[in-house]
């Protein structure tokens, strides 16, 4: 044992390091290890749950794909799993899903971008802090409320302007979903814009740019990948959103991209099947998992693109 200067050995001859006893240091190391293990368990649990979901989706889809060839699944334009002559063209559901998501983006991109520009480039800190709670409020509204808002308020209102609009349609839930993802896309875009270094803005102002020109020609191009990521992640939310479409878009699987007609999205179909009493192990039951797998893959794809872009925009400067 290395010799210890007398100054660090106390009256009871207990070893001291920087004033701390050995017992104290041991306890500290022990609790440090406990904390690390607890945190690791929490992290591992979320990964395991995700893997478990993927496992169940794949496991229950396999018998489905043993009966329905993948080519039919991807190319057929009919989705009638409970009919006698059942057809499984998942594109029917995908078309409605993408139509709603696209309408949502048409609302969310201009409004979200405008809001983000305003908050990041125009609003003073006080105003910004005053506006943000309202955005969070918008984000906290339960989706079922948005769904009934689309069905009972927006659709009748739109019908006075668009006479051909069905009671169930893709337009109203799309618009409402645009408002729903707006807080998220706006705040992520704003983060991207605010992380643009001040020096870049100063370069624009020094050339005689106006505030708007600085926003449009300097800040947005510099934050573009972050902004794109915000909208892709917003789109992935819209694709996975369930309540609004289940309530306001109807449950008829129709292939097509007409926003004036009602059509079941992937999520709406899953909800519909989950609420009915399907015999366990039937092909219709398995089709829920196949549809879920498709949904999972679509959102996964969007999320991967979004996260890739988000990571990239940090490396620009």
């Amino acid at each position, binding site marked *: 044992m290395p010799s210890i200067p007398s100054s660090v050995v106390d009256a009871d001859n207990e070893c001291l390091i920087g004033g701390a006893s050995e017992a104290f240091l041991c306890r500290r190391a022990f609790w440090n290890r406990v904390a690390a293990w607890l945190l690791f368990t929490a992290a591992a649990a979320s990964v395991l749950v995700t893997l478990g979901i993927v496992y169940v989706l794949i496991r229950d889809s396999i018998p489905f794909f043993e009966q329905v060839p993948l080519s039919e699944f991807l190319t057929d334009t009919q989705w009638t799993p409970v009919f006698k002559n059942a057809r499984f063209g998942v594109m029917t559901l995908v078309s409605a899903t993408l139509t709603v998501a696209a309408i949502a983006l048409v609302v969310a991109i201009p409004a979200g971008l405008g809001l983000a520009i305003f908050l990041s480039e125009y609003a*003073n800190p006080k105003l910004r802090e005053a506006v943000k709670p309202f955005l969070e409020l918008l984000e906290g509204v339960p989706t079922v409320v948005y769904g009934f808002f689309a069905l009972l308020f927006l659709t009748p209102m739109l019908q006075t302007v668009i006479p051909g609009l069905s009671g169930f349609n893709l337009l109203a839930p799309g618009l409402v979903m645009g408002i729903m993802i707006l807080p998220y896309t706006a705040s992520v875009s704003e983060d991207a814009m605010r992380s643009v*270094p001040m*020096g*870049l*803005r*100063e*370069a*624009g*102002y*020094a*050339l*005689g*740019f*106006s505030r708007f*020109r600085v926003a449009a*020609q*300097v800040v947005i*191009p*510099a934050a*573009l990948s972050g902004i794109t990521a915000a909208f892709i992640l917003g789109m992935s939310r819209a694709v996975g959103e369930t309540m609004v479409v289940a309530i306001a878009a109807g449950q008829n699987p129709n292939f097509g991209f007409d926003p004036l007609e009602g059509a079941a999205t992937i999520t709406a179909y899953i909800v519909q099947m989950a609420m009915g009493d399907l015999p366990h192990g039937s092909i219709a039951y398995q089709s829920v998992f196949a549809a879920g797998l498709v949904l999972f893959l679509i959102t996964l794809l969007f999320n991967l693109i979004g996260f890739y872009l988000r990571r990239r925009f940090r490396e*620009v400067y």
Partner: protein
Amino acid sequence: MRNSTKTRVKLLMNEMTSSPHPFGATRQRQDAQPEPVSAPALRAEVRNLDFWYGATHTLKSVSMAVVDCKVTAVIGASGCGKSTLLRCFNRMHDLYPGNRYAGEIQLYPEDRNLIEMDPGMVRLRIGMVFQKPNPFPKSIFENVAAGLRVRGVNGKSLLYERVEQALRGAALWDEAKDRLHDSAYGLSGGQQQRLCIARALAPQPDILLLDEPTSALDPIATAKIEDLLTVLRNTVTVVIVTHNMQQAARISDFTAYMHLGKLVEYGVTEKVFTTPQSPLTNDYITGRFG
């Protein structure tokens, strides 16, 4: 030119009689009276300028001249207010709340106080290059064209002509001509800084402000920028802030020394460095302070 200006310049000139004639290449004004020593034209003149960052009084009654087509260097220790002074010239402080000016920066020949002008108008006339290269996330061409476009230059051939001229002016043309439409971020740090100089030069500003333009660069890139400034001398009015005294001595015609928000000394560079009038300047340039 107004009389008051002329007297000031004459006073300035009297100080320089011992140095070799520094104004050989100065433009003569048509209406100028014959003078025993040809007076240089002023581009701007700071008169009793005060500046506050909130409650902090950072510039205290600063007065100095900016001579047309000459390089004026502002030197001093960190925190002496030299960058603050420079950023008054293009009203950069107006971008942030709580800043306040008092005094004048007269812009010649029209003799207007730029502190009272619209900041956007001021910045259309006075270009700036910053400490850290800050090209826009666009192509090299679009970076240089940005200042032209905002001034309404839109014709494609005219833009190309002016962009080429500016890139040549910033000694970047040979390196950039084959990659004009590539991203500016592909350039090295020194090239990016020369691109920023080209961007500032393209609209032909009345005054070019340089805020420690080489402090983020390696010695070779620094030497290139210094060479460039030597070439620009006599064609562009430059005000440069630098913490590098040798740089100020090498490239400037006039030098101002600042200390704690005050302008301690201003004069012909050679005189400031060889026979400084103030002991403070002497301490700084001999390395006893700062």
